[in-house]
């Protein structure tokens, strides 16, 4: 089946290493996501705090485009994008009046039939057994702390994915790669997200707690599936170390990095060399 691909702003901008990583990794698994043509912003946090209708129309436009271009499934690797797309899809499916209104605003019929997937779900579709079979270099040295962040599993009634408090899907994938995920506490806590622009101290505090807890529970790296989390935990790690006078030096990987490494792809091809903490 054709898989649509909605990169959102992050994967074409600050987090293009994430795109590089997942394209390399999925390519090896013979999954070729096709970018939705003429996609627009998902609305992110700005739209829904300003205008409710706009916050549905922006993802609605992308859903309409995906339908027009004949996709039934679409990968949105950024959890905020996928949550916004799923939320719009849910609201549209529940209220036919709204569906028609949004369809007319975005100048394209939306039925809400496109299935929006996050990166973990794409790996699940490929199948853990198949991934396990394709592993060339088992990651036996790695003890990753799997970090879901806030939006991958929340709000549960919108994303309907894994357990919102005690998730386990990422651990299952990491396990299949031969790595030993650690039990830790901050898997679904907030990293500070967009506060990085408005009030950096908050981000430093929250991310500091996450990194420290992961290390205390024996992790030697952290794995995430969110570009924003990666920015806060990786790029800001130096600032965290400086403000708290600590040395952390905990590498932060995208989930696709780990899968890619296990499949035998080089660090350069995955873009890991472009991370800040190495």
């Amino acid at each position: 089946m054709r898989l649509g691909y909605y990169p959102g702003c992050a994967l074409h901008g600050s987090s293009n290493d994430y795109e590089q990583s997942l394209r390399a990794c999925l390519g090896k698994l013979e999954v070729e996501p096709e970018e939705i043509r003429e996609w627009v912003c998902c609305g992110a946090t700005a739209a829904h705090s300003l205008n409710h209708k706009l916050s549905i129309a922006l993802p609605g436009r992308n859903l309409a485009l995906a339908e027009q271009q004949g996709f039934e499934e679409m990968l949105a690797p950024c959890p905020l994008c996928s949550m916004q797309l799923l939320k719009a899809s849910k609201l549209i499916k529940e209220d036919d009046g709204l569906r028609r209104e949004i369809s007319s605003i975005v100048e394209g019929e939306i039925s809400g039939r496109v299935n929006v997937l996050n990166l973990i779900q794409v790996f699940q579709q490929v199948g853990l057994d198949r991934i396990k079979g394709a592993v060339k270099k088992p990651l036996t040295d790695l003890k990753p702390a799997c970090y879901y962040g806030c939006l991958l599993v929340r709000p549960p009634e919108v994303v309907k994915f894994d357990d919102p408090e005690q998730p386990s899907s990422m651990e299952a994938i990491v396990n299949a790669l031969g790595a030993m995920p650690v039990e830790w506490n901050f898997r679904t806590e907030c990293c500070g997200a967009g506060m990085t622009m408005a009030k950096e101290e908050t981000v430093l505090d929250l991310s500091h707690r996450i990194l420290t807890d992961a290390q205390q529970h024996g992790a030697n790296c952290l794995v995430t599936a969110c570009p924003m989390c990666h920015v806060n935990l990786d790029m800001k790690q130096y600032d965290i170390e400086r403000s708290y006078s600590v040395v952390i030096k905990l590498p932060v990987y995208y989930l696709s990095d780990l899968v890619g490494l296990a499949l035998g792809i080089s660090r350069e091809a995955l873009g890991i060399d472009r991370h800040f903490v190495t």
Partner: protein
Amino acid sequence: MSRIGVFVCWCGENIARTVDVAQVADAAAQIPGVRSSVHYKYVCSDPGQALIREKIESEKLDAVVVASCSPHMHLKTFRKTAQRAGLNPYLVEMANIREHCSWVHHDRKQATAKAIEIIRLSVEKARNDAALQPIRVPVTRRALVIGGGVAGIQAALDIADSGHEVVMVEREPSIGGKMAGLSETFPTLDCSQCILTPRMVEVGQHPRIKLYSYSEVEKVEGFVGNFKITIRQRARYVDVNKCTGCGECWNVCPLKRNRSEFDFGMGMRPAIYIPFPQAVPARPVIDKSQCAKLIRNGCGLCEKKCKAGAINFKDEDRLVEESVGAVVVATGYKLYSIGKSQPKATLAGYGEYGYGKYKDVIDSLQFERLVSASGPTGGVLKRPSDGAIPKSVVFISCVGSRDNAKGLPYCSKICCMYTAKHSMLYKHKVHDGQAYVFYMDIRAGGKGYEEFVRRAIEQDGAQYYRGRVSKITEERGKLIVRGADTLSGTPVTIEADLVVLAAAMRPADGIEELAQKLNIGYDEFGFLLESHPKLRPVETNTAGIFIAGACHSPKDIPESVAQASAAASKVQVMLAADELTREAEIAAINEQTCAACFTCVPTCPYHAIERTEVRTPKGAFVKNTARVNPGLCMGCGTCVSVCPSKSADLQGFTDQQVYAMVESLA
């Protein structure tokens, strides 16, 4: 009926203020069939009733219409009045000109006109009334009590002490219920077992109580006064008559590490066991899922050791039948399961508290066992993970209660009190420890209850925080509890050694299936429904079946006991009579016209209609027909509306009467 008397009531000012009663009485006198029409200030008063009796005699009335309040209020009163004057009570009708007219209207002229029309309808109904005879059914003077917790024990003893036989069915190997496992009780801190076990022994030894433990109600047939109950006695593999309860078997059993149900997993028990030393009956059972002999024909040590020869590995479930006249349901409660697996999608669980993941996060019944003198730790509070004495304990109330988002909307009522009790018991056992309580509101209504909570806070130093806990995590052997103190508006973080969750109360497992067998109602949460929340709190809508204890709603011990005694007294009233009298307004099926389609049979909510045959006196088959069991029919009229051949009718409320009423309006 053509000599009808109409009595228009003023109800003081209630009716007379809005309705011109004199004009109404005059107009009613003109309605065909009315012999006499009068108005009076309070028809329900003694002189008012005397007026009815006098008119029945002087005017030779053959039916009576009282135009006053709702029949719920006074129909019984006026029927008795008529009966005393020699009139069949079912020839009395009421026209409700108070709730349906004077109370809801302002315009006197229009209200008066409406009152006349309402009376016209009732007169028309009275014209078509027939004299009915109340139904009499014989009574089996024995009662069934389902559930052997404190409510069931109280009900059984009350009924048995009044001279009637009681059959008690308990699902667990011993009676005693949840109360037998509690440590001490609020607000007096007296020992739960010390109060309860003498009552349990009384049940076990009572000459009029027949106890079926390790048994369940399989099937219920019959109707009020005449129930036939099939009881499934589960295979115990121990002959209770031969067994002396000596204890050799459970001492010798090598499989000692099985989760104890009675200790809610805080302790272990052998595969052959009694749940606790004071169990009634003090006879063990073998858990067939654990016993090596039953699984793979190994071991068998208990059989060799038993001098009484009571072990029987070939035991099987037995079905026993018992006849009873009344049933008391007292099946109790269970706790909301806090963790991931939930029976319904609306219950999302509290994954953030890590129950089931962290060993030292336990629920309140588990805590009861840890502080109970008869518990697995002998009353020394040791935490489950490493057996250490916890120096700081966090109690979280309302876990699952009052939570529309992922729990249950209702208040579980007893948690505020037992959480205060827990904090006290903890302080009494660990003097240098600190208890913290997170609460939403403190609901301590009850005799001595508020004082008890104050004692926990002021004397025993429990630190109360008004707010919720957002997450519990584990760091270096400590549980990190993060919550909010909404009174000071600050976040709170506590490093705790033990966390106790006061989980919501839910009805016991299998309650819905049991309610369906008994044909009684239950709400969306599974709690059994009373017949009237104020005036019939222990009756159900099925005659002869009563409820007591936490199967009805969350309740503490005093309340459960009071309700059990109330249910018992209702049973005693029923069993005191030789036969039961029931209202005559039930459905009847015309067997001549019944087409035997039996549409009514599955429609009847009370299972009161049966398939039967019409035969000549010599026994020759004539036809099939449906027949109403007068003991079961509650007169709802559902069969009347579905019968295609119009053979079903409701006596005292026939189709003919309804049509006549409607036509009289035209």
